[in-house]
């Protein structure tokens, strides 16, 4: 069952760079010490520049120390180094020695403290890329997936050694992957995928490999390193560590500088601009702009110092990952419903909490048919203009744009952080648009959307929370009613597709009843409580309205609700 018969070609790609020694990420890990040193120095420059004098710098450090001490006490993780408490109380003691009355006298010791903190952060963030491990992990992933796949699809246990079905039959890569390969040769690529599941990182890692691209560095949540299986993958694939608990200025600046310096070095990178997995199931609307901003700075830096624009160009490639099924959906949506409207600290504790559960999921995933599609969007420059096959920025009328022009003021490329922040905001808006355009509608998404909208209309006097508490009897939907609405919604999707506003899976084209059945079969198929299914009378019932709401949300933002 091809997801998009028109553009999907199963194909083996040669690596774009033959030997691993040519990979920028390998170069980076070779000169790691030097690289980290430059990250530390640059971060300190940025942090110091943001403070008028040693007094306010000391205050910043003081605040950081306070927050960190609190974190150590209240929210410790397995991955935290054992000397965390000792380190921060040491900092406290040294800060006490710098009296406020004559702060400039202690300038050197304050700078030394800052250096120590930044160095600690930079070394924690640092990735541990090892080419040998990378290759081994690759092989294990490929081999393991393939074996599982064949055991389940091709009848008989002996077929576990068959090569009939490959990973590419399960995970389909559609869209502009050829362009992506070219861009990775022409400049530095930043992949920005949507984020729905913890599986995304592994999946994208596989896609990068399958397309013959060199490894990308990416920021993975430090919490993932709590889980043994993930830690192994992450450490192998060039991940650097991002700790969402550390929201202090010094940490964030060090993190951004790390990403900026790696981009300047030509390392392709990957980050999820939504920040965390979408709790609601909606495609990200608000992006975290911090790391995009560091890409912006890297681009300007290259233009300022590199001269040769082509070699230093940074490209942004949006990626949308489509699942029928998100393992964590019930936990995510509950989290969303609980904390809607307020940002809260929460303890990660969901279905992805240990290696065993993940393995079970992977096994189920490969033994029952549920497809995943990864759609690679058109490449963008950092101002959100499309780039052509060769990486040239082009405007709406097809004329070439010189990216340097955006950074020029009175004839020269200049650093203007406020301007770059504004550009980053604009880029974020373009990425959100591209996410919606590249999203592929699956039968299950549409079924969930239709069912939930019918209930919303039926109980228009109830607010969301009351609606989610409607009893099973009251939420039964007659098949006729469902089918009619589904058809209307489907027509609307076709139209949006014609207008280039959304992609559709090819399984959506076919007999209406079959499309509906396909959607019902696939929707949340491994959840213990199915979000939508047919009862004995053939009518539709839901065993879990929250999760139905989650899958419904995938199609919000297209104005589809007005059609139903």
């Amino acid at each position, binding site marked *: 069952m091809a997801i998009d018969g028109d553009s999907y070609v199963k194909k083996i790609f040669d690596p774009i760079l033959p030997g691993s020694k040519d990979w920028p990420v390998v170069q980076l890990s070779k000169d790691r010490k030097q690289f980290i040193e430059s990250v530390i120095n640059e971060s300190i420059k940025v942090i110091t520049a943001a403070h008028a004098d040693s007094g306010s710098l000391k205050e910043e450090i003081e605040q950081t120390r306070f927050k960190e001490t609190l974190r150590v006490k209240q929210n410790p993780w397995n991955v935290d180094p054992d000397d965390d408490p000792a380190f921060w109380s040491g900092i406290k003691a040294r800060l006490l020695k710098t009296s406020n009355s004559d702060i400039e006298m202690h300038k050197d010791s304050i700078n030394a403290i800052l250096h120590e903190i930044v160095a600690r952060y930079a070394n924690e963030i640092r990735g541990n890329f090892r080419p040998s491990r990378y290759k081994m992990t690759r092989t294990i992933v490929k081999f393991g997936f393939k074996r599982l796949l064949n055991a389940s699809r091709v009848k008989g246990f002996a077929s576990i050694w068959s090569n009939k079905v490959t990973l590419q039959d399960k995970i389909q890569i559609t869209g502009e992957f050829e362009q992506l390969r070219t861009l990775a040769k022409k400049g530095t690529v930043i992949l920005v995928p949507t984020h729905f599941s913890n599986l995304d990182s592994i999946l994208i890692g596989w896609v990068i490999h399958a397309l013959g691209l060199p490894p990308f560095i990416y920021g993975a949540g430090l919490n993932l390193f709590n889980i043994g299986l993930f830690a192994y993958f992450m450490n192998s694939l060039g991940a650097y560590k991002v700790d969402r608990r550390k929201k202090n200025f010094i940490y964030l600046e060090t993190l951004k500088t790390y990403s900026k310096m790696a981009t300047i070095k030509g390392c392709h990178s990957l980050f999820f601009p939504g920040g965390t997995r979408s709790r609601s199931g909606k495609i990200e609307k608000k992006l975290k702009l911090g790391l995009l901003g560091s890409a912006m700075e890297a681009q300007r830096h290259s233009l300022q110092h590199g001269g040769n624009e082509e070699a230093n160009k940074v490209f942004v490639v949006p990626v949308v990952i489509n699942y029928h099924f998100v393992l964590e959906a019930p936990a995510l949506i509950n989290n969303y419903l609980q904390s809607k409207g307020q940002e809260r600290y929460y303890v990660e504790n969901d279905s992805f909490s240990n290696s065993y559960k993940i393995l079970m999921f992977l096994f189920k995933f490969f033994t029952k048919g549920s497809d995943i599609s990864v759609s690679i969007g058109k490449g963008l420059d950092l101002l959100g203009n499309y780039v052509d096959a060769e990486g040239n920025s082009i405007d709406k009328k097809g004329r070439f744009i010189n990216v340097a022009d955006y950074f020029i003021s009175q004839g020269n490329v200049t650093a203007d952080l*406020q301007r770059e922040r504004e550009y980053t905001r604009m880029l974020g808006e373009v990425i959100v648009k591209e996410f919606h355009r590249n999203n592929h509608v699956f039968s299950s998404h549409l079924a969930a959307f239709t069912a939930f909208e019918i209930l919303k209309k039926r109980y228009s006097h109830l607010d969301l929370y009351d609606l989610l508490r409607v009893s099973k009897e009251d939420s039964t939907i007659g098949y006729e009613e469902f089918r009619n609405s589904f058809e209307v919604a489907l027509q609307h999707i076709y139209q949006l597709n014609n207008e280039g506003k959304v992609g559709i899976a090819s399984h959506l084209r076919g007999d209406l009843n079959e499309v509906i059945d396909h959607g019902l079969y696939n929707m949340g198929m491994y959840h213990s409580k199915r979000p939508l299914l047919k009862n004995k009378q053939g009518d539709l019932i839901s065993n879990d309205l929250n999760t139905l709401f989650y899958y419904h949300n995938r199609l919000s933002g297209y104005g589809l609700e007005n059609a139903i």
Partner: protein
Amino acid sequence: MDSKMLSEKPVGVVGAGSFGTAIANILAEKSKVLLYARNESVVDHIEKKGISSGQLLHENVSGSNELEEIASKCDIIFPIVPSSNFRSLIKDFSEYLHPYHILIHGTKGLDVSIQDETQESTKLNRNQVRTMSEIIQDESLVVRVGCLAGPNLARELADKQPAATVVASHFDEVIQAGIRLLRNDRFQVYGSQDLIGVELCGVLKNIIAIASGALSGMGYGENARALLISRGMVEMIYLGRALGGNTEAFIGLAGVGDLVATCSSTLSRNFTVGYRLAQGENLQQITDSMDETAEGINTIRIAKKLTNFYKVRAPILEMLHKVLFENLTVEEALQYLMKYPLNVDIDFL
């Protein structure tokens, strides 16, 4: 950023109407200025006689008939043309414009981007209505966009009376450029980040200016005008917020400042429209005899449809719409407004 740099590249002004000319003269005190006019005879007049729109030009101002020349010689350009010509101007201009250009416009109108707007749809939403800064971004590669708004009656600027303006942009760089180029010892320049809000101030105040003219035409005095200005501002804020502006802009120089100036000036075109309406003329007669556009008329048409869509309460606008397009008399409109059941004075702060 030193003055040496400034003198090297001239500043462009596109549009040689009364406001464009006044701004060109202010800019000319610090920089060379290239003043563009579409009409060759106007450029001729600028070059040979040193006069534009009846104003004597500073010696630093020279005329041009070529958009290409403006774009290639100037990095910073002030487009100041009527809103009805704005989109076509930017379209013609866009092939010469690059992302390094800075455009600060001074046009106080709205643009309707759907083609058959005359096919009477009674509602318009925000996506169908564009501000001038949005047109610039739609039609060209320029992103560093700003606008100029405030109590800046062209006549008084030309007479070198003291005044102030607001330069609004999302970019500090643009605001700083505006301040650097425009500010002098009798012209103060304020900055704002709320580009849309400040643009809307300039646009929406024209509605109230027509009403103010109408009050004068009826022979009413300052109590009536003060009532109009304060209630008019409330309407501006309701509508402005629905369209994406912030309240702050409306209580600033570009909002209440410009509103007071425009409503008090018997010279302004929008005021004149209202005055003549109250004297019993109809819209056709008035527009036929005016040589520059009164932006307020078109703004009322568009704003009325916007209020229909967003269900914004705007009785003054509604009555003006009836007077302009539905043959209600000014007197009847006023009677209706005086009977309007007002409840609270201010409910938006």
